[in-house]
């Protein structure tokens, strides 16, 4: 997936299996020993301005893919119980799952998953 439209198309087609597979993968990571990727917001509470920021050039519009992806994951984590979520809000695991699936764009703009980074070390 490389555009926000690709994410919306996956929603419209009802094909959420790839998201659920990433959630399953994330649930098996050993957080005490492994690097766990996520994205956090940057907020300047000293400023009243709501201006948009200018991101890294190589990122292009990939932030929109990430934004849509985060919402898809949130909708799926919403279906879990508070106990299953460890009492975190659904957006918390959703941001980590989103980062796992949409870690960064490759040279053609396609999403690279984080598991590509550690592919030689994943235990089946």
């Amino acid at each position: 997936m490389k555009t926000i439209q690709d994410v919306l198309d996956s929603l419209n087609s009802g094909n959420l299996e790839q998201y659920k597979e990433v959630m399953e993968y994330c649930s098996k990571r050993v957080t005490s020993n492994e690097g766990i990727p996520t994205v956090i917001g940057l907020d300047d509470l000293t400023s009243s301005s709501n201006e948009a920021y200018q991101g890294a050039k190589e990122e292009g519009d990939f932030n929109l893919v990430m934004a849509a992806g985060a919402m898809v994951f949130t909708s799926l984590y919403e279906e879990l119980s508070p106990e299953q979520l460890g009492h975190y809000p659904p957006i918390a695991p959703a941001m980590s799952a989103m980062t796992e699936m949409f870690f960064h764009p490759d040279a053609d703009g396609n999403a690279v998953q984080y598991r590509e980074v550690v592919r030689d070390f994943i235990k089946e």
Partner: protein
Amino acid sequence: MQQFNMEAFLKKVTKDKRTLEMFRYLVNKSYIRVVNYHNTNPVDAERFEAEINYYKEHFVPVTLKDIDNFFETKVWPYDKPGLIPAIFEGFRNHYDIILPILDKYEYTAWFYIPSFFMDVPVDEQIPFSNAHELTVTNKEMYPDKRVAMNWDEIRDIAKRHEICCHTGSHFMITKETSDEDMYREIVEAKQVLDRQIGREVEVFCWLYGEEYYYNTRAHKYLKEAGYKYVVSNLKLERIR
């Protein structure tokens, strides 16, 4: 294959204001990638090296100065996005295993230190870690039983990486936390770190996803201590 229901989808993602806030950060390009690490055991060293090597190729390291500048100019000045390896808990294996890898690739990490852990007598460090949810996954690694970094090691790290305060005793601060506990875990924890590394620590990090607006009683102590940034598992907030 299930039929997509836009109404149900929108209801789910607008239930919690934090979700919409994250959506806004992503759309507004006001975000940063973080990879969270806890134990860095020798058995995983090869994987850590592959990760840091990958970050070096595809991202740029991030210093506090970069964050200051980003907030001032609203422009990320590099072609590549930033990524922060966030190293939690002040474990000794950070110094021995992941630090040499970070230094080899000249990649800046942010170390989140529960500042009272370092002063726990060596014999008591494993019981202390058990009691404070500082999960040590390889207790046999060090025969002398010192599992926390010492201050010399932290001072060495502070020369080329960011040091952040992760409370004093890995303490979960809630709305119900007493004033005395808040003062100790927010203000005194910073004073210990400042004194030991010889410069001001600007970042405070909650445990378990707390956020600045959620705990207004803690504002007084965060300001009194002099922190500039507060980090949760969803965001980094500039407060002064």
